[in-house]
């Protein structure tokens, strides 16, 4: 197992590459999800405020 992580001495270069790829891939999925959610709550708040102003 530790032999696998050592990668013949290149583990210090290989694993950061894979970790960075993982972080970047996840970030690009999470960012648009949060952006869309924020926009939806903003719009919902605006609608509620407009409706309250009418009554």
């Amino acid at each position: 197992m530790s032999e696998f992580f050592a990668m013949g001495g290149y583990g210090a270069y290989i694993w950061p590459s894979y970790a960075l790829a993982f972080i970047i891939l996840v970030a690009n999925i999470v960012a648009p999800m949060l952006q869309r959610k924020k926009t939806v709550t903003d719009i919902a708040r605006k609608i509620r405020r407009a409706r309250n102003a009418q009554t």
Partner: protein
Amino acid sequence: MIIRFFHKMGSPRYFYNVAGKMIPWFMTSFLILLLAGLYYGLFDSPPDYQQKESVRIMYIHVPAAWMSMFIYVVMAVSGLISLVWRIKMTEIFVISSATVGASFTFLALATGSLWGKPMWGTWWVWDARLTSELILLFLYLGIIALHSAIEDKRVAARAVSILALVGVVNIPIIHYSVEWWNTLHQTASVTKFDKPSMDISMLIPLLLMALSFKLYYAAVVLMRARAELLERDRNTRWVVEMVEEQAK
């Protein structure tokens, strides 16, 4: 039928709904191919005869570099369509692609650096391949900055599309840089007219990862486009109706 599909996709509401249905499919197929690619790349492929185990960085580096150029071309074509026909949906595609493209370009440069250190003995050299890829990153960042600097999003889209089109000249430069100049970076092993000079045991994980990254881009660009569209259309009737429907 295809023409009718594209015509319908021009309608924001229809695009928003259809894209929402397509994303899980792209995501699932991306994950399946990614896991297969990681399995072959990390467990079931041999070390290189010269580069030993360090060759496993290739399964991230090369697909990321391919994506950096592929996404740029998609972005530039969307930009051209936006400029000629003024289609709002392709305008949104330009800016949605830019962030994903910048991410892949950064990943290609960073993993290249991590590969360069043990193989070349340096994190960075100013050779033609590395420099032209760095220019690509600056082009992406320039496009993102320009887009956020202009308040009117239709005007911003036009400016960004022109920049994307001008920058397309860099793509063949990146690809042929290893042939035109004497670079430290090696020449192409797969993307050439000759048959790939790579063993099938390494070609399989490489192509699996490349395909999984393409599917990932498809999923993520649609997610970005939906978020961007919602933001832009926030005062239109279809968005208000949809949000009201969800609030019930």
